[in-house]
């Protein structure tokens, strides 16, 4: 997918940085910045699913939030269908916002408890398509509820009357309400019970096929990401360290961090577990306020070279769309 340049990607993210200011000192001298996202570049083609994985604190959620426009980038840019979102007029930006929606991790926190389900789903329609009549909007709400496997009667109920899995469906219906093209899913199933997760994942896949959606899936569960994504990008401390087609990532991981990450995922098969060799990383994630020199991973890397401590490895393509940033490869 990486080489098809004829088509403009639906989403381009270029050298994106997002820093958060830490405690500004009383005398305004020492400013510390938390480098949540530190130069991230990727593209997504229409209809494709890109998975963004990494451990907590790696900046994956910040990438998603910056892409959707909830944060302003510190540097770099995000382009939707070839148009830089920072350089467009307000009305154009609103239009783009409509085409990019988000599904949130916590189905309890992301639904307003005082609004009925119908109002929750209808709100984005009211904002983006104010001329739509009430009757038409109600029909659309019913259609959306059906689409996510809920009943039209549910429209008059409140979020607390639903289970976690059903709430996540409501969140998905809300995201679909304005017919988006790109959906950023931030940990779509991690707050949902195991037996319900598959229901949600299958639904996301079916909706993608039916509505030709493009997904950016942000998650820490590597098995799930592998299952749902066409390509996967692995993040560590605000940077992408490896990005490749998902099957290839699992068969042929090249970055030492990716290897450690994959080897750590437990598999529900005692035979497989007995044979597996784990790569155990030592130490903890360094602070993104004060990241290490050179390659950010060198403090925990088991294949560290002298050059890793001094020089940051560049992202290179090794053919067939396999990108990796490591001096060792």
């Amino acid at each position, binding site marked *: 997918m990486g080489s098809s340049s004829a088509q403009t990607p639906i989403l381009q993210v270029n050298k994106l940085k997002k820093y958060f200011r830490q405690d500004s000192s009383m005398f305004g001298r020492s400013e510390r910045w938390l480098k949540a996202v530190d130069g991230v570049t990727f593209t997504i083609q229409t209809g494709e699913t890109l998975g963004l994985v990494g*451990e*907590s604190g790696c900046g994956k959620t910040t990438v998603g939030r910056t892409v959707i426009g909830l944060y302003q980038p510190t540097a770099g840019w995000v382009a939707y269908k070839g148009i830089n979102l920072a350089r467009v007029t307000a009305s154009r930006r609103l239009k783009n916002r409509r085409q990019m929606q988000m599904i949130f991790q916590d189905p309890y926190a992301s639904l307003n408890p005082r609004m009925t389900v119908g109002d929750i789903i209808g709100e984005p329609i009211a904002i983006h398509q104010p001329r739509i009549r009430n009757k038409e909007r109600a029909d659309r709400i019913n259609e959306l509820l059906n689409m996510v496997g809920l009943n039209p009667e549910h429209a008059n109920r409140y979020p607390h009357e639903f*289970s976690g*899995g*059903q709430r996540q469906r409501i969140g998905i219906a809300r995201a679909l309400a304005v017919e988006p093209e790109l959906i950023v899913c931030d940990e779509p199933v991690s707050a949902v*019970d*195991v*037996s*319900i*997760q*598959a*229901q949600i*994942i*299958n639904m996301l*896949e079916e909706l993608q096929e039916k509505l030709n959606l493009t997904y950016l899936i942000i998650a*820490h569960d*590597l*098995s*799930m990401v*592998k*299952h*749902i994504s066409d390509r996967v990008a692995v993040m560590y401390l605000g940077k992408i360290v490896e990005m490749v087609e*998902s*099957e290839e990532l*699992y068969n042929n991981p090249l970055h030492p961090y990716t290897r*450690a*990450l*994959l*080897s*750590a*995922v*437990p*598999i*529900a*098969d*005692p*035979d*497989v*577990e007995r044979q*597996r060799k*784990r790569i*155990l*990383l030592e130490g*903890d*994630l360094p602070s993104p306020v004060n990241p290490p020199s050179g390659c950010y991973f060198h403090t925990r890397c088991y294949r560290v070279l002298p050059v890793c401590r001094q020089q940051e490895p560049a992202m290179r393509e090794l053919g067939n769309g396999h990108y990796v940033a490591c001096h060792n490869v």
Partner: protein
Amino acid sequence: MEQLLHVKNLEVEFRTYAGVVKAVRGIEFQVNPGEVVAIVGESGCGKSVTAQSIMRLIPSPPGRITGGSIIFDGENLLNKTERQMQKIRGNTIGMIFQDPMTYLNPVLTIATQITENLRLHKRMNKEQAMRRAVELFGLVGIPEPEIRLKQYPHQFSGGMRQRVMIAMALACEPKLIIADEPTTALDVTVQAQILELIKGLKDRFQTAIILITHDLGVVAGQADRILVMYAGQIVETGTTDEVLKKPSHPYTWGLLKSVPRLDAVKGKKLTPIWGQPPDLLQDFTSCPFVPRCDYAMSICAQQMPPFFNGNKVRCWLNHPQAPKVKFKKEVS
């Protein structure tokens, strides 16, 4: 072998405004010395309540243990007074919780918290307890123990806090450790470190472990035996190999099929378990899994299935007259 723990017909309920929630409905299992027994199931299936009952930590009211017995080391824990229980908790039974930050006291140093246990149960003096604490920190892989012991919980990362908790659980060399979702809050690479640590310590000290988790992957690498719980009941038990490789309850099978596996071939659809877990306010006269079961027969909705195959599985499909259903495990 003399069994260490025998839970017999345990029943636990919670009185709420909506009615009486029967969280645990007559479960029975044993744990042998040095054995790792995993309890798996979804939230609300009663796995954590079972663990808390063993420690007698059910908040009461609203909770109440309404029946059964918990025989630990030959004595029924349900007949103990609170004072006697305090001598057991943290001493012969250790506990590791999911979220160490809520378990550790934020205003006391780690040293105070870890030595308290030792001074109380083992009657050590301050220096002895401190020496033992340093030793324990070495054991669980916390570098620079002398410095780290003087710090407060917030100065530790999530993985390090969990190590502290394991050190505290091990302090008095317990015969049994109850680990309630010990790695759920951790990242996978840290989870791998902690699981490796628990395994190593178990082999070294021959401590029995009750491992409570919803992650069948974690279970596969750790447990000797598995109990699968659903709606307050044990629906299937067996060795790890039996349960994960040849599940005989449709719920166990459903759990295995609904979670994507890292080593699976791409392009296969997941098979979800339909519907929702049942409401625990109701009494069950038939199998509680019927509404979600793809293999339900007419008897399943009429009578509660007994245990079949030598107390291993609670499902009518295992009746000799039931049609033979093969759960095909489609693994790459």
